[in-house]
């Protein structure tokens, strides 16, 4: 269960307009059918996560119930109802990484940041997720921080890697 952080929703007018514009474009592109997932992806791209207020905008624009939006948003792993950290850490727990010891790397990150998977540090700096295979099994075990990829990571190296993002 992700730690619920009470960050007040502070979406801007610009964000809302951008979302509405993109939703209108998606509607035209999809011929009106099957666009819910693309709509949520667009919204998460704009806001970083999908708070209730954003889900409500989507429901209104697409003419569906909030429950339906919520149902889809909670089904897929890509969508988050809570904010993510400035630096999103992913430790691959795919088979290849796992057999090469990524579980220990994952645990090390938890210990250092005092959070669990799916959670975010109180200062919103780091969030951690266990990821599925990201497809570079030759580098196992793999850890990612935003777009940076660290391969063949050992638990001892974790502290040093995190330090680069702390300042």
């Amino acid at each position, binding site marked *: 269960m992700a730690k619920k952080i009470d960050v007040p929703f502070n979406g801007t007018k610009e964000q809302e307009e951008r979302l509405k514009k993109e939703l209108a474009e998606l509607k035209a592109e999809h011929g009106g059918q*099957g666009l819910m997932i693309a709509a949520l992806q667009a919204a998460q791209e704009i806001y970083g996560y999908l708070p209730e207020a954003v889900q409500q905008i989507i429901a209104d624009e697409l003419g569906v119930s909030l429950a339906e939006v919520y149902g889809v948003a909670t089904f897929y792993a890509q969508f988050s109802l809570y904010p993510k950290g400035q630096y999103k850490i992913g430790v691959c*727990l795919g088979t290849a990484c796992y057999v090469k010891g990524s579980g220990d790397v994952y645990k090390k990150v938890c210990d250092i940041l005092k959070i669990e998977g799916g959670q975010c540090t109180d200062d919103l700096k780091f969030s951690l997720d266990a990821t599925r295979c990201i497809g570079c099994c030759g580098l196992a075990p793999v850890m990612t921080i935003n777009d940076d990829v660290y391969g063949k990571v050992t638990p001892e190296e974790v502290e040093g890697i995190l330090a680069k993002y702390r300042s």
Partner: protein
Amino acid sequence: MFRSHILVCGGTGCTSGNSRKIFEALVERIRKEGLDKEVHVTQTGCFGLCALGPIMIVYPEGAFYSQVKVEDVDEIIDEHIIKGRIVTRLLYKETVGDDGNIKALNDTNFYKKQHRVALRNCGVINPEKIEEYIAYDGYEALGKVLTEMTPQDVIDVISKSGLRGRGGAGFPTGRKWQFAKNSVGEKKYVCCNADEGDPGAFMDRSILEGDPHAVIEAMAIAAYAIGADQGYIYVRAEYPIAVKRLSIAIKQAREYGLLGKDIFGTGFNFDLDIRLGAGAFVCGEETALMTSIEGHRGEPRPRPPFPAVKGLFGKPTILNNVETYANVPQIILKGADWFASMGTEKSRGTKVFALGGKIHNTGLVEIPMGTTMREIIYDIGGGCPNGKKFKAAQTGGPSGGCIPAHLIDTPIDYDNLIAIGSMMGSGGLIVMDEDNCMVDIAKFFLEFTVDESCGKCTACRIGTKRLYEMLCKVTDGTATMEDLDKMEELCYYIKENSLCGLGQTAPNPVLSTLHYFRDEYEAHVRDKRCPAGVCKKLLRYQIVADKCKGCTLCARNCPAGAITGKVKEPHVIDPDKCIKCGVCMEKCRFGAVIKA
């Protein structure tokens, strides 16, 4: 004409290793030297040998440079490109013959036994240029189909070739197309399953990244065969490079009139759109995938009606996997007999495997069906690193099972793998050595399915969770022998009572390890011992008195204060205080700490 071609791998593995920067540095240096009319730099798809990435090949010499760094670029340009002296220190050792000359790639152990059909253009062409695909016979098959063949001819060729679905279950592709063709309907759809979710499998991604047009062309052929005019590729959002190259490829195909209205002036219309998955393993199941394209929670629905009758948006639909499609254009061009000449009687052609885990040559390999596991693991894969003993290979991901060492000579095809309790799956092949605990592996897969079960069927939603808890009892050392029997019973219950492939196959990792490695389960239960030394609760760290120099390093680092002893005298671990974190073993410089 260029005097030299430099091919830099742009697959995900090498890109993670910074190959994009290497590519840019090469282009920049070449431009600076004024060689851009003589030397051509291209970014290609995956070469397959991901363990040695980033990879580049320089032609005409065929110099295969591995583990290249950005800092190496200047040396490669100065020495190789300008002076014509190959940078031997960067060469992949296997490509250097005894006489010091460069061997052809196809003569190296890794490539020798491979036969590249689905991967034929990966690592050869620039996937972002349609002209390069066309130069390699691209879209010729589509032209042939539209101008010389009837839809039934196409299906007959595919049926005769013996092509079976490469996504896991191995359903005959021609038969699937025939069903969809026979379905009456004004609107039909062609879909591509690129929601590659098995942990450890990345062949579909590599094909999309390295040869996206092959998939587009094949989907157009399929559309013609069944009478569809719209297609969807459902691809994981986690594959950004694949999505980008697919988008570029679709745009280019439209510009060339190979997608859209009146293709080749034959009156045939077909267009293609990408739908991004949002991270749900169950969406690899065909009915769930279609529900997801429709924009709903990706839950599977009962079959029949089969998608060929009532699929996407309620219309007749075919859904094939990326690798299946990648075979199609060549079957059309080279004929059903050519394809059927490869492989075994019931499994024709080749199969791509993603080799991973405890193996030297991690990467992508494509082998004719019927190749043995031994050939893949030892001849191509180079065996387990660090002289460790091979224990088992896992195929089929969370739906598959483990193949133990004594069955390593089994020729790989769909039916043989099922017979030994595993399955082809999409082609992930994870190698495990003596340091891997089979109960722990089964537990790992169950944790995955517990997470990914969509929740629709009780047997799967609750059953996998209970099964996982039983496995935890085993690894914690609190299980009884009756629990093992109960586990087995529960496995069959889940299989029989789940709606879709996810639940029906989820217990396979447990069943196959229980079957082949029951002694390991029993060791956990009866002797409270993990033979591989993985399960923490059953582990005991000990200090070998003879090896301990009394340096106190372990005692100073032990977070639990469990280690005592005087300076320069052997230390002792108090098992009651030890939390089994393993720090002492990591810190000891004399190898005195062992797992008992």
